[in-house]
């Protein structure tokens, strides 16, 4: 096995997801399959290829420091599950 059930549970916790026993088993199996497939990819000879996180080589894409109008407040808050006083309302965070 490339991945343990504990690891899957840990990742679920970090992603704030809850799964049933059955789901956990299924995901462990599926993720194991995915990771096993990487062994196949590892067979490709990449000794002369530099590692990258992009498919095409682009660098230095900038915008100038110019202010443009923000969107209307009601639009900003439109996706808020709860709102109050122009703010997004969330469960109490204790400091």
């Amino acid at each position, binding site marked *: 096995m490339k991945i343990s059930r504990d690891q899957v549970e*840990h990742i679920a916790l*970090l992603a*704030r997801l809850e799964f049933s026993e059955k789901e956990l088993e299924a995901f462990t199996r599926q993720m194991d399959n995915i990771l096993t497939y990487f062994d196949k990819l590892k067979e490709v000879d990449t000794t002369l290829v530099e590692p990258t*996180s*992009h498919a095409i080589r*682009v*660098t*230095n*894409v*900038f*915008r*100038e*420091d*110019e*202010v*443009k109008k*923000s*969107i209307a*407040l009601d639009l*900003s*808050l439109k*996706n808020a599950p*709860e709102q*109050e*006083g*122009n*703010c*997004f*309302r*969330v*469960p*109490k*965070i*204790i*400091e």
Partner: protein
Amino acid sequence: MEYEAIIGLEVHAQLLTKSKIFCSCTTQFGASPNTNTCPVCLGMPGVLPVLNKKVVECAIKTGLALKCEVAPYSVFARKNYFYPDLPKGYQISQYEHPLAKNGYLDIELEGTVKRIGITRVHMEEDAGKLMHEIEGAVTGYSYVDFNRTGVPLLEIVSEPDIRSGEEASIYLQTLRSILRYLEVCDGNMEEGSLRCDANISVRPKGQKEFGTRAELKNMNSFKFVRMALDYEIERQIEVLEEGGTILQEARLFDSKQGITISMRGKEEAHDYRYFPDPDLVPIEPGKDWVEEIKAALPELPQQKKERFTRDYSLPEYDSRILSTSKALADYFEECVRLFPQPKAVSNWIMSELLRLLKKDNREIEECPVSPQQLAALFHVMDKGTISGKIAKQVFEEMYETGSSAEDIVRKKGLTQVSDGAEIETIIAKVLAANPDGVEKYRNGNTKVFGFFVGEVMKETKGKANPKIVNQILQEKLKT
């Protein structure tokens, strides 16, 4: 046992750009909640962040001023964690390839210079603001304002070279001064545009290995940085002395009680799973751009201090105070240009001017007396129109009202009395009124001389020219 503290600081500086780091929303402070937001900084799916060029420029500037190597290749990474002030579920930051690294900052400690290593300088986005109470709202909730989300930050990480709260505070002051000179950050700690966290551990002196460290947060003034670290050093030593162990944890400084408090249990275990952000392309600043920025770097506090000492023959102490802020240094130089007596100008600024500014908690930029006005006061003093003592009164009035020195002197009739005949008359009067004193003096008790000077000054409301008073008084008392 003797212990030593090992401290490294992480400083976050908000950059003075007009727009946010990855979108065109304004960075202006104090707007109504959530009005400076857009799909990019709200973290909507499918949006594309585009890097603000000015942010890179500020980061390179700062890196160069801190003697860092500017990376030929730099990448943004996603730092994954959940917190309500972070709409995307990750913060765009830098991890493996920061824009600048391996620099240093020299700090001055009672005449000696100590070099503090700079590990790295990287760019990242700020998070939103969480409020736990808002007016008129139900309790039991927290409220999020995303206006600050995406405001550009520089994170400046020092090596663990700092050994005390005092050193940390001086490091932070020196760093702040440089950031302000570079005009990349306004350095306002109260408003949070400059924030400081510390990693701190203690170890028995002579031991090589580091002890377990705690992370200190929420120290929003130089004083609090010093207090929090000094408290934490004592606390950790005490724990070790009693045979306990230090927990690796985050602690908050409580400025009211002057102690640090564990945040244990209030944070999930950190597992940020950094990876390169595929929405943003790598940065390759290139030699030309870096050289261009280097050539345009302003004179920095240390260089200015040295120049003041050399060119104006000022004591080191004066030069250091005058070069703390660029605005103050400019103020001084403008005064000296108009009244070329550097030491006299320096004395006046350091004692009179800074005292009044400090009293009102004002910066030099808000000083009601312009360098031109102050220089005019020096000229009035220099001509002998008023004495130094009266000049202080006049200056306070200039500061309060913004009037010119000449106007105040004229209106209040403060012109110094240098007329010998007039002073002679007053002296005669004073001596006649104090025959005992005169006799004492003539019998060798010269201490009463000061008393007579004081009486003459009282008669003239301080306006008599002290030199002439001394001269005539001496003659009169002899006979």
